[in-house]
């Protein structure tokens, strides 16, 4: 993958290979600690999408397409959106109201606390990451098609 002509220079590719995991780690941290520190599902999801975007910009579209299953990303996106709805329906079944916080609250400041807020945070994070990346992916594809035609 490093030898291909696509994407940016070797320097960018090498740096990206190291730093992109730090970006992913930060995104996961923000999502998991959403109920404790500022951040949460939306912010962490955007960071994850930016990490994917970083790979796409550094290595080029086609090299990314080889090891990234886009159909799978679309499926994850739809499944996490459905699971969010499912959590709401589970609230009706277990708590009596839609989207009620039916899990035990736990002690404040603990990582495993606040009932189903962390679960919803994770679902939103995955959903936002996948959809934003897919939007950029599709738009970038349109741009390249145009460039190829002219």
């Amino acid at each position, binding site marked *: 993958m490093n030898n291909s002509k696509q994407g940016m220079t070797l320097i960018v590719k090498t740096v990206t290979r190291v730093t992109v995991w730090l970006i992913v780690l930060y995104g996961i941290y*923000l999502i998991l600690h*959403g*109920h*404790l*520190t*500022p*951040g*949460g*599902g*939306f*912010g962490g999801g*955007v*960071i994850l*999408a*930016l990490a994917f*975007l970083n790979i796409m*910009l550094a290595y080029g579209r086609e090299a990314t397409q080889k090891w990234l299953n886009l159909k799978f990303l*679309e499926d994850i*996106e*739809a499944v996490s*959106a459905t699971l*969010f*709805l499912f959590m*709401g329906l589970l609230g009706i079944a277990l708590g009596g109201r*839609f*989207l009620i*916080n039916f899990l035990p*609250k*736990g*002690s*404040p*400041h603990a990582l495993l*606390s*606040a*009932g*189903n*807020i962390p679960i*919803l*945070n994770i679902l*939103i994070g995955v*959903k*936002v990451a996948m*959809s*934003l990346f*897919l*939007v*950029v992916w*599709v*738009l*970038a*594809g*349109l*741009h390249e*098609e145009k*460039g190829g*035609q*002219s």
Partner: protein
Amino acid sequence: MPVETWLTFILGFMILGSIVALEIRDILSSIVAIGVVGLGVSIAFLFLQAPDLAIVQFLFEIFALIILVRAFVKKDYHIETPARVNGFMVAISLLVLIAIFVSSISVFKLLPPFGQPLFETASHYVNYGTEETGAVNLVASIILDYRAYDTLGEVTVLFTAILGTITILRIRKGKDAGRKGA
């Protein structure tokens, strides 16, 4: 300095950035000016002690900048014919804006003073949020517990947006392929 002074300064900076974004000829400089506006909003959120919003705004600004730069920075996009300015229409717009401003001064006087919340619900969230939901971050407790229904709506909006984007662009791709084949 009080927060209001900083906010006024940032607001002026943002207005300047939007005017530059509208008026400048080079499209790349225009995109950078739009970025200035968005980052100004992010800093304003920091001054208003809303780090969650500041983080999201900052990230989305970077995201939008990447999309815009990727979409617009090509040789053929850079050429832009200068727009002709109709002095009569500008005068009318200015007059209408001044009229709206003057007539809304009485409304500004009705606004609560800075830092005084208008809704009493907010104080309930602040006082009992951690106790009732178990989340230390009150923003998370509001958007995912008290107002989780809103968040469901947001998720649906995002889902519909990506659905629409992919559908429209796929139709376009199919058309292009058909034209090539014909």
